[in-house]
């Protein structure tokens, strides 16, 4: 007797759970032969809203974790991804990518996670400073995470684009809501399973599948989103995003020229893009050899 294959249902990832879209809408994902390979959730603005709520409530816990612990968790994500390499390669092939390119994409993604795992407890030293001031104060500036980051990740890449956009954001102690590639969404949801088994607290990363034309205005207008990263090239969307972001002066970073598989796609400065600088004036009695001023 022949066996019926059990097909995987690709859902979305919100607050550590895998719900279907509340809208009940789906879009068929087809391969090169025009056969349907999966029905993907067409996420709505309410899914986005729920994801932001999850991300906001996860922010406190994640940002207060020690940098070293965040580093361990990012490394753990890389370990989990390594263990499921074959599955990701198979999914990439299914989405029409060549075998060599698929292998490269997965290994690069793993390496990129390890890269940012390393940076978790080091970027603070790089971006902090002790500032010379003219009064009796010890004055220093340190980076702190911005908050909830909305990400519209690369359309062309299924896995590497996602990892490249998420890793620096969470390495810096932020939480995020990510819109995955619409045409290559499979790896995003499988990557959610990896995240979910890596000791990453629920809600730190939330992943939606769907349409950027429909969602970008909600991503950019939501008052509880502190920063928005855009990895695509659509000029109209960029314009709307910049206008809407003014509502609550979100940070906006447009990475439309990034080349994902190049060395330049990874840098501590991508962490820094979602950090705020806090400067502290601490009264002291003496500065250097001078006498106390108060």
């Amino acid at each position: 007797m022949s066996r019926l294959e059990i097909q995987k249902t690709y859902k979305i990832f919100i607050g550590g759970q895998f719900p279907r879209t509340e809208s009940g809408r789906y879009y068929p994902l087809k391969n090169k032969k025009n056969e349907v390979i999966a029905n993907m959730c067409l996420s709505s603005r309410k899914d986005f809203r729920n994801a932001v709520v999850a991300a906001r409530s996860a922010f406190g816990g994640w940002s207060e974790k020690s940098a070293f612990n965040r580093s361990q968790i990012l490394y753990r994500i890389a370990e989990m991804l390594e263990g499921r390499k074959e599955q990701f390669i198979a999914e990439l092939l299914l989405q029409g990518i060549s075998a060599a390119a698929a292998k490269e994409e997965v290994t690069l993604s793993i390496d990129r996670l390890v890269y940012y795992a390393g940076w978790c407890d080091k970027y603070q030293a790089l971006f902090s400073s002790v500032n010379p001031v003219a009064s009796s104060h010890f004055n220093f500036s340190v980076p702190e995470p911005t908050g909830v980051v909305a990400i519209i990740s690369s359309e062309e890449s299924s896995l590497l684009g996602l990892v490249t956009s998420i890793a620096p954001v969470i390495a810096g102690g932020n939480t995020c809501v990510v819109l995955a590639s619409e045409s290559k969404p499979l790896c995003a949801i499988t990557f959610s399973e990896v995240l979910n088994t890596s000791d990453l607290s629920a809600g730190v990363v939330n992943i939606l599948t769907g349409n950027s034309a429909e969602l970008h205005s909600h991503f950019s207008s939501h008052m509880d989103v502190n920063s928005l990263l855009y990895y695509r090239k659509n000029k109209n969307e960029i314009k709307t995003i910049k206008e809407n972001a003014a509502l609550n002066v979100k940070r906006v970073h447009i990475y439309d020229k990034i080349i994902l598989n190049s060395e330049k796609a990874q840098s501590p400065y991508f962490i820094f893009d979602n950090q705020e600088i806090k400067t502290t004036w601490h009264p002291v009695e003496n500065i250097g050899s001078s006498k106390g001023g108060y």
Partner: protein
Amino acid sequence: MAAKSILPDFRITPTIDQVGIEERVARFTTRSIKKESKMQGLKMILNMIDLTTLEGKDTEGKVKQMCYKAVHMHDVIPDLPTVAAVCVYPSMVKTAKESLIGSGVKVASVSTAFPSGQSTHEIKILDTKFALENGADEIDMVISRGEFLKGNYNFVFDEIAAIKDVCGKARLKVIFETGELSTLDNVRKASDIAMYAGADFIKTSTGKISPAATMPVTLVMLEAIRDYYYATNRMVGMKPAGGISTSKLAMQYLVMLRETLGGAWLSNEWFRFGASSLANDVLMQIAKQTTGVYQSSDYFSKD
């Protein structure tokens, strides 16, 4: 009161079909309320809130601040209603009363050794009198759950009746702490006892114990109110308290209220939400409806 002369036998109050209650509750959560009716519902919820602070760390400053919020919910949006009342400990009643002069917002005070109710009869009476002398418009008393669970229903009945006598014109809300009553049958029984003893409101919880208000418990109490109304023609109010922190959930409670007791109960004279964080969520939803943009708690005052 005529009702007292026809006391039912509380040993034979109706038993509750838990599965039936849960299925009925599940129906209430499926109603779709949009646009104008949603806006109206949100404002009604706001107007039904008893803005509450019942913490050991409460100070006059905190109470004053909350009273200001009770009247100025979110001044950016014009024509917002005030909340129904503020709910505080007896020691804070005076401060609250002074802060709310002329606002129409009532002052409710918890009493009878809230939240445990573990004290003597005299102290509970004094506690209530103290709150009333300081100007409380409403008294939220707790029942003696220990006595109730022992089956000492007369004790519970007499205690409620005694506090009601002290209250005079002030409205009396009776808190069951349903989280400690174990079964829906007990909730129903406590509801009947309290209403026949003279309660003007019955209230689920103190907010100090989990689970606090749930929809099944509230439905059981609403049905008790309905049956009591049929038997005596007296309306009794309902106050779910604790655990209702989102507008969506509050809206489902309104649906349940409307479909169980009818339109006559749809005002803050007969229905209240005991909550502190619900108010901000409702305000954020109202702001979302008026601006079209999802809101952040960063832009709403903490109470």
